[in-house]
């Protein structure tokens, strides 16, 4: 009897602990790539009714060579031809983990980080910020098309 009670008490403790850890582990801003994609797609649909994200357009954006930056003409310059591969920063030489969540699960899970790098890298490569539609296409390519 005592054993059963103890076991029950222990398991309750573990469940509570596990729940606490589960609740504490993800940062407040954690998201899935699908959630991020939906947010950008919804924003794009408000601007262009009927918008549907396209992995094909995302792939084209990823590979396209722009003229804004000599050292970084395309996403692929640093991230290689495939976002499943590790890349290298064209200026500093620093190793870059793969961009596709399939190869690097932490990718596209932190909305603030994703926004920061879209803002910075779109400005660097294309010479302007990317639209919500482009971001949605890009994430669709990262998650489905690559």
């Amino acid at each position: 009897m005592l054993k059963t009670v103890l076991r029950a008490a222990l398991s309750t403790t573990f469940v509570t602990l596990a729940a606490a850890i589960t609740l504490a582990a993800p940062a407040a801003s954690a998201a899935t790539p699908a959630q991020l994609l939906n947010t950008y797609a919804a924003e794009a649909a408000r601007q262009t009714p009927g918008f549907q994200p396209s992995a094909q357009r995302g792939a084209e954006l990823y590979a396209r060579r722009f003229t804004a930056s000599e050292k970084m003409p395309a996403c692929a310059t640093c991230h290689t031809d495939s976002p499943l591969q590790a890349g290298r920063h064209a200026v500093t030489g620093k190793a870059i983990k793969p961009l596709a969540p399939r190869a690097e699960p932490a990718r596209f899970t932190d909305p603030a980080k994703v926004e920061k790098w879209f803002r910075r890298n779109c400005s660097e490569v294309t010479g302007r910020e990317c639209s919500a539609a482009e971001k949605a296409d890009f994430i669709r390519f990262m998650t489905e098309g690559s």
Partner: protein
Amino acid sequence: MSILRVTRSALLAAVLTTPLAASADKMPIPADAPAAFRAECGDCHMAFSPALLTAPDWRRVVGQLDQHYGDNVRIDEKTRGEIEAFLIRHASTRNERTWRRDRAAPPHRSDPPRLTGTPWFRREHREVPASLWRDTRVVSASNCPACHGRAEEGSFRKRELALPELQRRKEHH
């Protein structure tokens, strides 16, 4: 003041202002780094030790983040201030005049100081052949981990040199 006193204080000054030389193989990031330091200063390049530049140099680096060696890396003012305070707290206290005397002019006038342009960095790397700096595995002199296998942990010992062609050099030391 006697000549002896003068000599002694000069010697002391020399010792105090000598670059890291002897301790250069250990340069970990101090534990009181603000949370944003590694995220903001360690994504495009390795997060560098604050001891690699002097306080005035760091002020110039973080004072013009919109012109960061050709890149606009502006961050919010609060984060910038925290990072600046941290860098200055642990900055090199080397003698400014000695430090600057033989520093090579930066390639672009607008560029902030480069830690790879300091006399200390050049001296420490004087044996590195020019071809290696241009190697596709290295790309930039600021890419410490390309050669220093444990650079991200703040360790720069010769025996940790990672490229095969550097192994030979290791054996000579």
